[in-house]
């Protein structure tokens, strides 16, 4: 495959990957089973890494390879493993309960996607990158992850939602801007890792104290 063909197909592939990301985001929104949710999260990470690598290849921003590597390690391997280990340890096998039913959530999700595309449109017009049209998708992925956090009442899916949001952010960074400077990226990655660890510890403690991971038990602190 020559460089030229690569250049020719790359934007299309990136778009494809973006679409895949969005699809995965929707899938996560609709997913009830927690193991599958983690797997979907890992898949999203994979897509992310691939797209980052591709963008890096196309644009010649080689530090994106490093980012792709970090993503691969962190989001495809380490975090899903931690999460799997967590649910095994906590013996969480139940289905994920949602606050709204799934179709409603999906419907809201579609509205969000439309909104995200609309918001991102003027920005995309300015983007000079190969992945110009993907910014909307990134934003949509962020919003969908946000929605997922809102609709899930258990602690673990909320954490996954949080991490998925991070995925969306990362995608935005790679697609729209060829990646943010390395220093920052390392910092972000570190924060995510530490954050995930702390969340993990917390989930243990909450489980220990409340005998449940349902955040609906965490409603003691409120105004009378």
């Amino acid at each position, binding site marked *: 495959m020559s460089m030229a063909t690569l250049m020719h197909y790359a934007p299309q592939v990136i778009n494809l990957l973006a679409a895949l990301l969005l699809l995965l985001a929707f899938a996560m929104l609709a997913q009830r089973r927690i193991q599958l949710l983690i797997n979907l999260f890992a898949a999203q990470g994979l897509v992310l890494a691939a797209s980052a690598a591709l963008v890096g290849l196309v644009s010649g*921003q080689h530090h994106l390879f490093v980012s792709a590597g970090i993503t691969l390690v962190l989001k495809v391997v380490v975090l899903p493993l931690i999460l799997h280990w967590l649910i095994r340890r906590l013996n969480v096998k139940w289905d994920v309960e949602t606050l709204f039913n799934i179709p409603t959530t999906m419907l809201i999700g579609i509205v969000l996607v439309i909104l995200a595309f609309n*918001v991102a449109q*003027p*920005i995309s017009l*300015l*983007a*000079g990158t190969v992945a110009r049209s993907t910014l909307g998708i990134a*934003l949509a992925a*962020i919003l969908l992850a*946000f929605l997922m*956090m809102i609709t899930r009442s258990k*602690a673990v899916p*909320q954490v996954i939602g*949080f991490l998925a*949001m*991070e995925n969306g*952010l990362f995608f*935005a*960074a790679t697609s*729209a*801007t*060829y990646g*943010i*400077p*390395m*220093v*920052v990226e390392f*910092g*972000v990655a*570190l*924060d995510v890792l*530490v*954050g995930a660890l*702390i*969340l993990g510890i*917390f989930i243990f*403690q*909450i489980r220990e*104290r*409340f005998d449940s991971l349902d*955040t609906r038990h*965490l*409603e*003691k*602190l409120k*105004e*009378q």
Partner: protein
Amino acid sequence: MLALLGSPLAGAAVLALVGHRDRAAELNVAFSMLTFLAAATLTARVIAGGALTVLDEQFFVDSLNVFLVALTAFVGMTTAMFSRPYMRIERDHGRVAAGGLRLYHSMYQMFTFTMLLVLTTNNLGIMWVAMEAATLTTVLLVALYRTHASLEAAWKYFILCGVGIAQALFGTMLVYFAAEKVLGSGTGALLWTHLDGVKASLEPTVMSIAFVFLLVGYGTKVGLVPLHNWLPDAHAEGPTPVSAVLSGLLLNVALYALVRCKVLTDGALVSGAPGERAAFASRLLMGFGLLSVVVAAFFLSRQRDVKRMFAYSSVEHMGLITFAFGMGGPVASFAGLLHMTVHSLTKSAIFFAVGHASQKAGTQIMDDIRGLIRSNPTVGWGLMLGTVAILGMPPFGVFASEFLILTQAIALQPWAAPILLLSLGVAFAAVFGKVQPMVFGDSNLIRLPHQPALVPVFSHLAIVLMLGLWTPPYLADWYRQAARLIG
């Protein structure tokens, strides 16, 4: 400069190693003092020589942040002094384990480090990273007691701030995206000094969308209504020194980040957008500020927990400061900065007094704390004067800044002034009505085994009193310079 950041970082490491040994608290104080000394030297240098950048432009101090650096280092130091007896009593009461103390001391230094990093870094990305790190360290501090309530508070704090701050990252990326067009890709496009130079040519649409994300992101940390929900929980359930630094410093730091972003957005919008849009960022800040003041004022009267009440009071004051920065102009920004100073000094002093009071009473429920002035007059007076000060009674400095903000509001936004004033009136009724019986009347309190640390309380109040009656000229100049930077 390096000493400034190095001291707390080293402190964190050393204290993590030292653990819970008796000297840990003293070491904590010592490191905080070291930090303050470094901050003081830095401040002196900036006053003498103007803004400076260090380490390949990665760090940058101008009059705006050096003032916050000094404030942060000072309150950090006094809080460390306060926490020495406070945490010792907590340990005696068995509320916190030895390991907990190790975590507390090292995280305290770590937290100071992250805040100073936010303040001094020149890189918007690093600023975000440090802010997130500050969240992480404080989450651990809030959860220190491992009780139901503290876990719940910490969880909410983490999730809400984590999600919020993720939006800020997206906003930061958009800024980078806009800057890239002008500055080219690379680290330079996130350096504030560079961005500030080219802010007029940044894309206005992108910048305004970016500002929305940044506002939601950092606004969550500032505690603007309706993003404030984590704040009262976290303040009420964490150890009191942590509440003091959260209220007194972290909120300021987050607001600082927001203000830096606002400067860029304003620059882009003023030159690149038609009239109406130019004031976009200002309007948003004013709107959120006003909403926060009003809602927080009404929340105040429902409170039973003393720390929770003062947490809402922080929301109110942050709203006021945000409103001031939203109005803009030399006087309002000046007032906003002054209010930042006096609020953080007063509020931390209040938390110190409240901490001792609730230790005496064994509870944070206000109805169970009575007659402090009989059992321990100094703590009682500290709380009384602090409350009076925070409610904007002269001759304390909070009144000075509120006076400036309100008079500016009358001049620039006459519609908002009565709303603000009425909210302040409601807040006054709520807070004073609750604090008065805590301080006055017959006492139900016990004596504590350790002498409370009252130097922090009264040194803060003394400074606040001075600022109400007299602003030293160099301080005023300093504020003026910073206000000019904010615009």
